[in-house]
């Protein structure tokens, strides 16, 4: 499992942003350092066919929402099979975020590792499977 992602949290409104910012976007209040598990859901994505200088076409860009609500921009190797609501893992390489699709088995493993007591583990795997099935249908999510 990839490393946790560096983030920052507003001590006043608890908002979390990635990458860390010095002040909260909603108040002129200094944010505190935080870290988030590198797992999230695709909010939306696009493929750019004439990217700006310094990037190769096709350029896949996704906006991913991490657990906790922080959203971040990511690059990806492909968007094939990616849908709005797809579960992805995010990795930072040289401070650039990359997303990759995670399958059923990976998801179950991740939940297994994160879950504590046995009951929670089973519930987590169940949730993961349900989520996988649910993700095949269009969802009212943005």
């Amino acid at each position, binding site marked *: 499992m990839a490393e946790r992602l560096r983030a920052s949290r507003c001590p006043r409104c608890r908002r979390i*942003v*990635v*990458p860390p910012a010095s002040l909260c*976007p909603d108040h002129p209040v200094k944010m505190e350092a935080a870290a988030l598990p590198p797992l999230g859901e695709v*909010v*939306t*994505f*696009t*493929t*750019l*066919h*004439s*990217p*700006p*200088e*310094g*990037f190769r076409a096709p*350029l896949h*860009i996704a*906006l991913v929402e991490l657990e906790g*609500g*922080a*959203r*971040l*921009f*990511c*690059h990806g190797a492909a*968007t094939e099979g990616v849908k*709005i609501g797809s579960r992805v893992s995010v990795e930072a390489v040289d401070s*650039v975020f990359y997303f990759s699709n995670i399958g059923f088995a990976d998801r179950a493993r991740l939940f297994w590792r994160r879950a504590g007591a046995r009951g929670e583990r089973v519930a987590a795997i169940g949730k993961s499977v349900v989520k996988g099935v649910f993700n095949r249908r*269009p*969802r*009212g*999510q*943005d």
Partner: protein
Amino acid sequence: MTRFGRRDENLPDLMAEAALAAMSDAGIERPDALVVAAMNPEEFTGEGNFGSLIATRLGLSTVPSVRVETATSSGVAAVYAAFAEISAGLHRSVLVVGGEKMTHLPTPRVSEIIGRSIDPHEKSYGTTMPALAGLITRAAMQRRGLGLREISQVAVKNHAHGARNPYAHFREPVALEAVMESRLVADPLRLFHCCPISDGGAALLLTAERRMVRIAGIGQGADSIAVRYRSDLTSFRATQAAAEAAYRMAGFGPARVDIAEIHDAFAPFELISLEDTGLVPPGKSGRATLDGETAIGGRLPVNTSGGLKARGHPLAATGISQLVELCWQLRGTAEGRQVSARVGLAQSIGGLATNNWVTLVEAVR
């Protein structure tokens, strides 16, 4: 305003053409003050100290001037500043002139300069304005159930309107199939969903005197420059706040609006904006467009000028040109595309909806 499109004149000449036409139309040779809008003349044409440059070019070198900038909505920001100067009693008449000159540069360079209005972190991922619009379009298609057909019909309608406007950049109609089959720019956004790169200038003369058209309400709305900080991608908070402020100032709501100029830099933005301004009920803008409700002859003609899509988008001229079109419509001088209207609404988007404006204009009886 000038004809929009590929123009050979330099930026001060284009802005002077627009300004002199507005001054002559108003019968005012020497306004008390000048508000100038240009998004980025420093980069596009290498011109600086822009307020004084334009004032001097206009033969108004001793008239006080300021320059205003809010990215792609700079034109209306200048109108707002002039409106505030007059409302505060600082001046009786203020000339507002905006313009941009871009077509002399290669397209990637123009995109790069416009792209500087994006959050630097997000820009470092290769995001451009079309990329951000592509992200929003995909979310809107999923969440609002918008289809490629509805989005494409916006471009078809606005091209049909532009064909009737002698000031428009594009004067040829386009077929729905041509729009739907044009090449992908930022999936699912296609080339014919995007506005062109245009040159041009536009001007208005605002005065404290009673004239044929008055500004009934004007409002500004803001949102984070970082798209990742927003929780809602399929409506623009900045438009909603601007509309609320404009309606509050005017003392009436969207039901009174007969005609609208909407910032369709990307075709789906017209659909989103019609709902954000309350002109069309939530979820109905796609259907209304397919049914011709927003075409000339429909219930609520939208972008009779051709919009950004067909009239063109010389950045800081655009917001002003929307109000010029509404003035002409309310005065009954929009030859070839005249509709019957008493109240008009203009909506302008700055950056990726970080600094938006809604203006309500009304014919004075």
